[in-house]
């Protein structure tokens, strides 16, 4: 099953089991979303549980907060993460702090889904990875799946969560794993081992990372599309790296991360977002603090360059396996 089908399926199961779950956003109703993640839901659950909205991300999130305060569990879609900014005030100032400021009297169990990341020639406004703008905001949980099964389990857990969850979907791996080799034929999840998705309702707990490739030479901390890039780089370098898919960025699964780095003594942080003040900075800061006496080399970061995401130069920008491999070798030599 593709990640899109897995996300659609998660919506379907959540709506079937809890009639407080409502789904809305731009083009999500009749059409089922520009990426089809909500296909068929309006037909099945009716227009008042799944509907199109005006083009106002603020309105989508603000209305969702009000509905959550009423007692519903909205799961809304922002068409691209690049378009979450108009809603940022409602997310940061309202959703994230409502429980706190009302001492638990009003709460905000909403999920805000948004496709993130590049690799589709979407240029600067269809390629962004704004996760660090959420991890800095206390009161939010931030989730990034890398496989269809995780997308389903994590989304179901997010919808069931009592607090606001930002659910970032790496659109480049919606249809199949992408390891950064843009010149090679694309494989579909349908024909890929990692494409297996369990039937029925299940939750993949938030705050738990997964070790997708064990190893003891060095630790790679990553998430989303970059998990697959990391796996390719490991294979191509032959370096026995341990690849950790964080899955939830906040709260972070610190134990799994630190245990691995203490074991390997080397750490590479990998993400597609721009380097400066990216989430990799927080990971590097925590790793060097917790594992200082185990580190053989400084924590290295491979990330998007500090430029807007360009169109023609997409593959010069995208941190592909070659860049990752180069950094891995450098780390091993350090």
């Amino acid at each position, binding site marked *: 099953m593709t990640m899109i089908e897995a996300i659609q399926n998660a919506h379907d199961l959540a709506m079937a089991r809890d009639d407080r779950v*409502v789904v809305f956003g731009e083009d999500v109703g009749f059409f089922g979303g520009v990426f089809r993640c909500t296909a068929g839901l309006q037909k099945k659950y009716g227009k*008042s*549980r799944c509907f199109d*909205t*005006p083009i*106002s991300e*603020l*309105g989508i999130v*603000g*209305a*969702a*907060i*009000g*509905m959550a*305060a*009423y*007692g*519903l569990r909205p799961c809304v879609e922002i068409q691209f993460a690049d378009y979450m900014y*108009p809603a940022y*005030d*409602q997310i940061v*100032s*309202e959703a994230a702090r*409502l*429980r*706190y*400021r*009302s*001492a*638990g*009297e*009003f*709460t905000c169990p909403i999920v805000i889904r948004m496709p993130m990341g590049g690799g589709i020639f979407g240029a600067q406004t269809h390629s962004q990875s704004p996760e660090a703008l959420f991890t800095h905001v*206390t*009161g939010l*949980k931030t989730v990034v799946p890398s496989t269809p099964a995780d997308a389903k389990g994590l989304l179901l857990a997010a919808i069931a969560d*009592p*607090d606001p969850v930002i659910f970032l979907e790496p659109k480049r791996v919606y249809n199949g794993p992408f390891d950064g080799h843009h010149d090679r034929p694309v494989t579909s999840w349908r024909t890929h081992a990692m494409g297996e998705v369990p039937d029925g309702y299940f939750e993949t707990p938030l*705050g738990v990372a997964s070790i997708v490739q064990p190893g003891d030479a060095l630790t790679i901390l990553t998430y989303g599309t970059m998990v697959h890039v990391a796996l390719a780089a490991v294979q191509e370098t032959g370096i026995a790296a341990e690849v950790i898919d964080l899955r939830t960025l*906040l*709260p*972070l699964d*610190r134990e799994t991360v630190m245990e691995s780095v203490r074991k390997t003594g080397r750490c590479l942080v990998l993400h597609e977002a721009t380097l400066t003040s990216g989430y990799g900075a927080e990971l590097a800061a925590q790793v060097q603090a917790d594992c200082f006496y185990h580190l053989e080399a400084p924590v290295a970061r491979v990330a998007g360059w500090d430029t807007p995401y360009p169109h023609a130069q997409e593959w010069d920008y995208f941190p592909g396996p070659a860049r990752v491999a180069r950094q891995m070798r450098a780390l091993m030599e350090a």
Partner: protein
Amino acid sequence: MDDHPPLALHVPEPEWRPGDTPDFSRVEIPRAGSVRRPPVDEDPEAMRDLAFTIIRVLNRKGEAVGPWAGELSEEELLDGLRHMLLLRAYDARMLMAQRQGKTSFYMQHLGEEAISTAFRKALGPRDMNFPTYRQAGLLIASGYPLLKMMCQVYSNEEDPVRGRQLPVFYSSKEHGFFSISGNLATQYIQAVGWAMGSAIRGDTAISAAWIGDGSTAENDFHAALVFASTYKAPVVLNIVNNQWAISTFQGIARGGAGTFAARGHGFGIPALRVDGNDYLAVHAAAKWAVERARRNLGPTVVEYVTYRVGGHSTSDDPSAYRPKEESTAWPLGDPILRLKAHLIGLGAWSEERHAQAEAEASDTVRTAQREAEAIGTLQTGRRAGPRDMFEDVYAEMPPHLVRQRHEAGY
């Protein structure tokens, strides 16, 4: 093209600044009772006039006249008067408490008491308000304990929001009062969302959104009108036009539109403009708008014309930007004196009973204040503690916050 004269920027200015003598005689105030009362299901286009007038019930003689009159019993009016007196007495004491350093900050309602107290009486028990910091009358008129309000203002141990919020940022789900945000206007679209939620569930509860004249310029105001208009949300969209946004007069936010109520017309939303210092008019307009929402006819915009007599907050000194005399020159009078005159006219009230009621109000406040201060103030006694600081960020405290709480020593 260049044979045209040069362009110039138009920057609206209030008519009077400190030193000038305000003169509202040119401001045309419709006679009480002169504005028609359409059926709630009348076509919005046919009601456009109601956004460019002022619905008023109490005339100069203190009589209740016209089609918007006759909604409330004497008992209800006496209640209303007591609510306004209580709110005014409460404000006075809390202002003084702030000056005495018992808390950090305060915001009063002087001159605007009728709006929130009268509106509350038009709502049902399960309806929800999304207020600003200037609608504490909603709590008082719904019987919320003064003591709790004071504990919030003092951020003491009994503060329902555990010392986390700025004074006057109350919250009471039970009393239909949504947690106040310091970010202007954000609650406006949330109110629409709450109302949509009620409609989605086939409930009968409605919501009321609150905003000030200045804040209508914010993004959330637009989103609220768009969503309310599209989904016909059962919500009352209140705009309290008290003429000022801190030092900025309402003309800067209003621009070329004649009134704030007119904003509704861009969306096909019916709009009423009401005398905000007339308890009866506020209540009648509120009831009309609430009825529309309850009957699933959709949203109504209601602009309350009033005047912010006091400073914006305890951090503000209005004499720097407007004439001291402006509030006394303001033509719509004082909401308490106007209701008082009406009740005396009805023979239901007297100067003596009024004086007595004022005394009772300040006693009630003083008693509550003694209790509150026995618990603590921002500086003394039993205060909201540092441990509270780490709670409620999430339903369950995540490991990194537990670690930080320990590091902080709790």
